[in-house]
């Protein structure tokens, strides 16, 4: 069928560049020619022994963990408010949460950098892992929020009311009823937030000052022909490091009846 062919071609189009880069990680030659003549795994060792790569990796992981933690907390709180209460301004909250990811990254980055330079620095706070985390957390909130709200909407609030009827106070209800229902949605949101933060570069360039996260390391080395083999290896690693959490997140939130919404 023509449609099936079109779908297959589109999928191939989507995955081809990623596959190509993955293959390049095994390229022996420093120059990026195609087709590849000799294959090797030596660049993996070289990349691992590179000090700048290792510290960039460490910074990325730490920042991603910090940003994910903050996003989980704030996203969970916001989702509880929006999904379980109706109040004036509820739609505005949704809009506000989405805004950091809806506006072009350069606007967000420029705005945050303006704040760091003109508000933080006069107070003595300068670019650090915390400025990176603040930037990442701001747009990771929406990822957690979306997952949590979707889950809370699917699971009605009647169980919580029943819990209250049976004598549980708010904390008990949250701990024994609400949170277990949200757990996998929060896990998925957290994994997605981690992946998002780990390979973010557009806003991070503005909030990192002189520090290098792994993507920033890649960016600075794009123009250095001798470093390209290591960049290939790092690229492969980043692909895997972002695809794995996303895939796990999808498995964790698999919906029992296929996708939401019905037909007819």
């Amino acid at each position, binding site marked *: 069928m023509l*449609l099936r062919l079109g779908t297959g071609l589109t999928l191939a189009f989507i995955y081809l560049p990623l596959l190509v880069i993955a293959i390049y990680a095994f390229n022996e030659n420093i120059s990026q020619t195609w087709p590849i003549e000799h294959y090797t795994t030596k660049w993996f060792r070289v990349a691992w022994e590179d000090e700048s790569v290792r510290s960039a990796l460490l910074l990325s992981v730490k920042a991603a963990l910090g940003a994910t933690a903050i996003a989980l907390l704030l996203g969970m709180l916001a989702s509880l*408010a929006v999904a379980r*209460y109706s109040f004036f301004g509820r739609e505005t909250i949704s809009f506000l949460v989405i805004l950091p990811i809806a506006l072009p990254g350069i606007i967000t980055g420029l705005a945050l950098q303006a704040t760091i330079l003109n508000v933080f620095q006069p107070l003595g706070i300068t670019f650090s892992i915390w400025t990176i985390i603040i930037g990442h957390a701001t747009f990771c909130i929406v990822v957690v929020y979306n997952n949590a709200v979707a889950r809370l909407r699917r699971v009605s609030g009647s169980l919580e009311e029943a819990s209250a009827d049976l004598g549980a106070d708010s904390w008990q209800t949250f701990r024994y009823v609400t949170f277990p229902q949200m757990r996998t949605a929060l896990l998925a949101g957290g994994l997605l937030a981690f992946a998002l933060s780990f390979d973010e570069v557009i806003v991070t360039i503005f909030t990192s000052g002189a520090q290098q996260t792994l993507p920033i390391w890649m960016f600075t080395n794009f123009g250095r022909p001798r470093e390209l083999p290591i960049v290939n290896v790092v690229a492969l690693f980043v692909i895997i490091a972002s695809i794995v959490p996303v895939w796990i997140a999808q498995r964790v939130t698999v919906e029992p009846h296929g996708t939401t919404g019905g037909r*007819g």
Partner: protein
Amino acid sequence: MSSVPHAEPPPRGNPRRRLSSFFHRHHHVRLGGLLAAPVGWLVIVYLGSLVLLLMAAFWDTEPFTNDVVRHWNLGNFRRIFEQDVYRNVAWRTIKMAGLVTIADAVLAFPIAYYMARVAGPRKRNLLVVAVLTPLFASYLVKAFAWRTMLGEQGLVNWVLGPFGLSAPGDWTSLWLTFTYFWLPFMILPIYAGLERIPNSLLEASADLGGRSVRTFWKVTLPLAFPAVVAGSIFTFSLTLGDYILPGLIADQQFIGTVIYSERSSGLPVAAAFAMVPIAVMTVYLLVARRLGAFKAL
């Protein structure tokens, strides 16, 4: 006869329970408590920064130290409107954003249609995951991949070589790259929109004598249009503000790259020029809302 058990008085006492009862009676306070942290964060950190950026557009730069001087004036805006280079860059970017949007809409529709109306539930789930996953694969990795593929000795030249063709020029390469990047953003809303179309409408159209092409043209497409507009918001906005790809792939100046390079010589001018994509997107969003895109998101 068994005795009726007493109703025990509800346990009072410990502070946690009393606090919880307080929250239960005054659930606006509980709501406020829930919202305080996230909303506070977003308003102070994010909106505050945006407001600061907006204000900076009206300020000046000290020429030697590049410090920001809070001298309110419209000089930056005058410079943007008067100097041709800004206008050219803006038009170029908007043109590219439009072309990319069209390309993505055309490419996304077949796969979205397949996912929404043809594939079985298991395949559909798999396809959603398959389309969503590369979204999270690093932006930079994809940029690097395309630059490598489009290079002098890259994959594209190797494939086209035997046919006597060569890799596309700068503009086309950039267009191709942008189209690639934002494609999932177009596929998912169109898929969601097509999925929402009730079968009954299509059956009714068939009952009234419409053959499949006619039904598609007159029923499916108009109903899916808001979803296409919704997807276009992303493709347009992302192209408009991108500051890495134009320099990397095509070595050309776009709105994003200009803002990016201006920022080191002075935040105010960069901030002023940043108002251009904000203004464009505000108009775009208003039009999109009119066309029903927000309901399709």
